[in-house]
């Protein structure tokens, strides 16, 4: 993944930078307000509880998955298992063929992004229409989501006006309420004419065989109840044992994501329509996807599977807020993406991501289930070193530093020389505009302040402070 190149593009993209600056802090402020309103002490207790609940589910994941399957089947749903994206595509296309389905509407599913499902559906002539407003917008733009909760967060009103004007063939609107109404109008058509509804799933409840869908727009309900077939696609790590677990996690999820005490719609879907039901799909399918998740179970990255997909980590990440989500190159951006991408697509295919972090810890502090993201990123860096994936020059430089630092008899004279040299390079102004060798990355956008010119060690020795043993 060429994160560096994409990040460079993002930094030079003035429109994107303007959008990030204007809107980047919104979710952070809202989460802080929701946390304060609930009470900081209680919120922190909930985070502890959230981690425990998720760990408990992951500790015996197979048990809960089988229980889920049992309960879901009992209520008339079909449970399918997909090893990877290719199998997801195959299973969905099978379902389309079996039921003669022609048109799909979708509410947000990141798993469907992992599986490149939309393309596969379009290729067979089953048009998938995204109905989540943000997903709808980027579908019009032909882009991927840049945030797991707000897929079109990189777009501003002007850009959306342009997209609507172009695709809706109506007068260009600029008022947000009017634009939303127009989108609803467009989407209504699709809701009523689709025979397949594809959704994701925030949680799978083993106790009842239900899928929980947490949304702010009504599209989630339309997609999962109007068409005759509903397919819910989500990852196997989403299973939680009980409704009580769900209630606890629901106190954390909306607050952490958007600063809401609860989202506008919370839906628990349990089986297809029963005899006598006025609505609901005739057929309900679950596609439970592995795609690398089972590899993480029992590994030193297992904590990443606690993730409840709130987006708080990327909201708080200084790197994400500077380059935006597209720079990350795959489905999941920000800190969680920097762990999941190498984990799911291969360490060697995502070398930059674990490196492109300051390890500031803001993500860890914000994570509702206390995933130790900086430590996971550091672990991935260690794995890269062990797999000999780091550039030789970088390893040599770090080893040289370690070699020097272990030998004070060498370290002292070298740093004395270094301090003098850098001071000289700093000249009268006391700063260096271009550092040589590996230091060039620093001085691209900054000066390097010159050192004082002598080391503490030599000055302290001169003062008569010497041995301290």
């Amino acid at each position: 993944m060429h994160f560096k190149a994409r990040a460079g593009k993002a930094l030079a993209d003035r429109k994107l930078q303007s959008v990030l600056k204007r809107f980047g802090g919104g979710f952070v402020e809202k989460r802080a307000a929701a946390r304060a309103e609930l009470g900081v002490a209680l919120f922190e207790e909930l985070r502890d509880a959230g981690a425990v609940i998720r760990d408990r589910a992951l500790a015996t994941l197979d048990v809960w998955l089988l229980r889920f399957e049992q309960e879901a089947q009992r209520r008339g749903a079909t449970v399918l298992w997909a090893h990877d994206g290719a199998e997801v595509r195959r299973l969905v296309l099978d379902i389309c063929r079996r039921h003669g389905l022609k048109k799909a509407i979708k509410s947000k599913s990141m798993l469907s992004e992992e599986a490149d499902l939309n393309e596969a559906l379009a290729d067979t002539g089953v048009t998938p229409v995204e109905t989540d407003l943000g997903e709808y917008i980027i579908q019009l733009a032909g882009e991927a989501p840049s945030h797991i909760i707000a897929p079109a967060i990189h777009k501003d009103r002007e850009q959306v006006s342009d997209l609507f004007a172009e695709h809706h063939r109506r007068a260009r609107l600029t008022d947000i309420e009017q634009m939303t109404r127009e989108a609803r109008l467009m989407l209504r058509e699709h809701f009523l004419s689709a025979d397949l509804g594809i959704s994701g799933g925030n949680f799978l409840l083993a106790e009842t065989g239900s899928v929980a869908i947490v949304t702010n727009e009504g599209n989630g309900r339309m997609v999962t109840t109007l068409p005759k077939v509903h397919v819910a696609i989500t990852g196997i790590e989403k299973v939680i044992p009980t409704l009580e677990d769900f209630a606890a996690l629901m106190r954390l999820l909306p607050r952490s994501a958007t600063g809401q005490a609860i989202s506008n719609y919370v839906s628990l879907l349990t089986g297809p329509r029963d005899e006598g039901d006025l609505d609901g799909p005739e057929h309900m399918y679950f596609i439970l996807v592995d795609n690398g998740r089972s590899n993480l179970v029992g590994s030193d990255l297992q904590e990443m599977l606690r993730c409840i997909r709130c987006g708080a980590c990327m909201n708080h990440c200084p790197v994400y807020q500077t380059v935006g989500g597209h720079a990350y190159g795959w489905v999941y951006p920000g800190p969680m993406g920097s762990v999941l991408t190498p984990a799911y697509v291969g360490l060697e295919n995502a070398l930059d991501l674990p490196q492109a972090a300051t390890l500031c810890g803001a993500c860890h502090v914000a994570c509702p289930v206390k995933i130790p993201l900086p430590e996971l990123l550091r672990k991935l860096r260690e794995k890269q070193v062990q797999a000999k994936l780091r550039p030789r020059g970088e390893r040599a430089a770090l080893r040289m530093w370690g070699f020097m630092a272990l030998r004070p008899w060498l370290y002292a004279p070298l740093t004395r020389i270094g301090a003098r040299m850098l001071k000289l390079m700093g000249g009268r102004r006391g700063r260096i505009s271009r550092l040589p060798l590996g230091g060039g990355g620093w001085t691209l956008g900054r000066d390097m302040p010159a050192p004082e010119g002598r080391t503490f060690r030599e000055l302290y020795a001169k003062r008569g402070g010497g041995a301290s043993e």
Partner: protein
Amino acid sequence: MKRRVGLFVTCLVDLFRPSIGFAALKLLEAAGCEVLVPATQTCCGQPGWNSGERASARALAEKVIAEFEACDHLVAPSGSCAGMIRTHYKDLFPGEGAWLARVEALAAKTYELTDFLVRVAGLESVPGDYRGTITYHDSCAGLRELGVKQQPRQLLAKMPGVTLKEMKDCEVCCGFGGTFSVKFGDISAAIADAKCEHVAACGADAVVLGDLGCMLNIEGRLRRRGDDRTQVLHVAEVLAGKP
């Protein structure tokens, strides 16, 4: 009986700003401590640790432990180095009982400077006489690993000439991140730029902080932006005043 404090100078202070080392020394002595400076000290091992070079980090940790464990405390003018020793050293010796005991013992008595001065030494007054408006940047490791937040502010509040004005996003990372600053220099500088905007917006004469990495980064970006006015000061030098 005076507290015997081992001053962990840090590699960046040693190389770039020895005056900060002397400021720390002055403050510790003002707090009634006997300050020792183990002569063979070099680096805490964090660059290797963060980069995944475990062996190198471990070797340096062993060295630091041997150099400082005889002191009553290890104090560093850096949240990042103190954090490395206090929270991460134990991860370098998984399952090794003997080493872990020594690590735990050292970690328990390792402090960032302002944290030590407030919570352990109870420093009553500070020698510095800075006059002006300052804003404080909360370095990430100090804040999130060690809980350093109120301590520097409490100490700065003892200075009648200092007016503290909090800036927007004072707890947001400055973009240094160790080797990140050279590996992803463009992103790093952009993050630093956002920090500089907040410093400028709050109108302070100086931005004060507790870590050299942040210091060099913020100062470097301020100057590249054409700001030669705003001072960038380590909290130790503000509190200690003239040498």
